[in-house]
């Protein structure tokens, strides 16, 4: 690997980490679309900052862009608060307007500089290593690495310092307010960090990929864990994984790096969406099938419990009595037998002690809906896992 290749992967990875952290909280706060809005509406801030400083890497650009990001959030909330339109409509109204102001400003005044709409939307990671930061004549690395690196350090510091405040205000804003952790302050803090991160990242990876890097890793992590810290760590890992594999995909296809990273993010999410152990589509379908079977099993056991007369419990006539097809009757009969819940003597089926107890407990649970009754049954049966 050449130096430039290592630098590109390093920048992509750091951008991925810096995006995954605020992204996790945006996903949990159901504000994913806000990141889309911010990523577009920072454009006028960047353009105005550029007109003032004539330097694309000036910190003023970041400050102004972050400011226009926060203004987006304020405007969206203000329009929404009037009750005349819903939140998604408000988002759809605000950011295109701000973005188009930026587009017009560029077209009118900045046609001759390296600030065009394509670069804003898609970024160009491949060129990042060419723009070096020189400190008293010494090359210390690509400028974008320094910018996004500083933003990452800021983000990590903030998330470590205010982890508990972020958690409580995201989970329960009412409690957070009553405890004295103003949800409004935390909300705008998060919006500011998201805006700053977006500005720092968009130069390298473009506005669309920023959204993907914020949302996709967090959404994937959400399907895999039930712990906030782990969700953060998983998001970060998924971000890095997609960044590096995306880079090599682009290398292999000779295609856009940011496009390839986004593709990898999409594939990663698809894989987890399908195969996640508990929340994945396949796991859910499997569980539903199990539950259906167990409801049938219970119906069967209840039938045995309710009927003492032999003709109701004859193996060959069971299906007629419960009105099931042969295959289904056989499956359920086998399942009950395998679990030692029934005995078959002379083709007459009867409940074992275990089967009898299980049926009573299960019926109790269904009638009272009290969890204590079935605590010890939960491991055996899907039906009771909620």
């Amino acid at each position, binding site marked *: 690997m050449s130096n430039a290749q290592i630098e590109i992967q390093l920048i992509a990875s750091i951008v991925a980490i810096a995006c995954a952290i605020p992204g996790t909280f945006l996903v*949990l706060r159901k504000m994913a679309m806000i990141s889309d809005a911010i990523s577009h509406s920072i454009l006028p801030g960047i353009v105005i900052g550029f007109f003032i400083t004539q330097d694309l890497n000036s910190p003023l650009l970041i400050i102004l862009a972050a400011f226009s990001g926060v203004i987006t959030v304020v405007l969206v909330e203000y329009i929404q608060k009037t009750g005349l339109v819903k939140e998604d409509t408000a988002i759809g109204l605000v950011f295109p307007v701000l973005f188009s102001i930026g587009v017009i400003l560029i077209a009118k005044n900045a046609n001759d500089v390296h600030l065009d709409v394509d670069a804003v939307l898609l970024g160009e990671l491949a060129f990042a290593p060419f723009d070096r930061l020189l400190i008293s004549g010494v090359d210390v690395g690509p400028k974008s690495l320094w910018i996004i690196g500083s933003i990452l350090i800021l983000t990590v510091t903030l998330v470590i*310092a205010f*982890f508990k405040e972020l958690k409580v205000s*995201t989970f329960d804003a009412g409690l957070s307010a009553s405890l004295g952790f103003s949800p409004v302050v935390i909300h705008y803090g998060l919006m500011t960090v998201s805006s700053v991160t977006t500005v720092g990242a968009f130069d390298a990876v473009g506005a669309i990929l920023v959204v993907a890097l914020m949302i996709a890793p967090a959404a994937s992590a959400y399907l895999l864990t*039930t712990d*906030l810290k782990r969700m953060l760590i998983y998001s970060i890992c998924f971000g890095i994984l997609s960044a590096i594999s995306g880079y090599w995909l682009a290398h292999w296809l000779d295609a856009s790096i940011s496009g390839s990273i986004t593709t990898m993010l999409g594939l990663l999410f698809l894989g987890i969406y399908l195969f996640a152990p508990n929340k994945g589509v396949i796991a859910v379908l499997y569980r539903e099938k199990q539950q259906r079977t167990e409801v049938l099993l219970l119906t069967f056991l209840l039938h045995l419990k309710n009927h003492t007369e032999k003709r109701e419990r004859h193996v060959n006539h069971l299906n007629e009595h419960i009105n099931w097809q042969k295959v289904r009757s056989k499956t359920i009969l086998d399942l009950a037998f395998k679990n030692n819940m029934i005995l078959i003597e002379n083709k007459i089926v009867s409940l074992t002690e275990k089967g009898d107890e299980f049926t009573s407990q299960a019926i109790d649970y269904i009638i009272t809906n009290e969890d204590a009754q079935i605590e010890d049954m939960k491991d055996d049966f899907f039906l009771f896992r909620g």
Partner: protein
Amino acid sequence: MTQKIAVQVDDLTVAYNYKPVLWDIDLEIPEGVLMAIVGPNGAGKSTLIKSILGILNPIAGSVSIYGKSYEKQRSLVAYVPQKGSVDWDFPTTALDVVMMGTYGSLGWIKRPGQKEKKAALEALEKVGMLSFKSRQISQLSGGQQQRIFLARALVQNASIYFMDEPFQGVDATTEIAIINILKELRKAGKTVVVVHHDLQTVPEYFDWVTFLNVKKIATGPVKDIFNDDNLTKTYGINYKVSIQE
């Protein structure tokens, strides 16, 4: 007998979009009562609690907790929001939710440690949920979630407890367990304020009641003021028949 006043509300008016939902409320809650706030839907019951706790900003009036503003007395107050106000799919465990009750005493930045964890475990034990401490909160039943919320308030070790419909969507066993804990709190000299819907259980559960419907209708001991007259004034229909049936 002169009782200390735990919560004093003066001329409180709260509006959403310029439409008052609470109008000129004067209310004194004496120390050590177990009080129900009753009233029809949209009467402003939750709004009253949220305004006392500084979650909503009133357009007029003031609130004091033991004579001082809420901001100065936060540590004396615990709050149980409506169960439906949070996302139970949030990635966290029962123990972690209870720990959130300790955040207030920690203040900004400082993290919970062993002491806070111990307090949270004790609170979980009190509500009978210790064996569920590592359970992800979406895996809990409605009644269990409510117990977790109660444990989170207990861990705050407050003097005044505000609870927004703690009996909503819970089974009978949980309802009894919760009311027993609330009665214990009162016995320990705490003040408990509960937004309540089930009028039938008011005389059995509570010793103090406030009737609310945008305006305050009445407040006082259940035995003195929980009558058909006040119920009719609050709900606008004759309650005589329905209560006696």
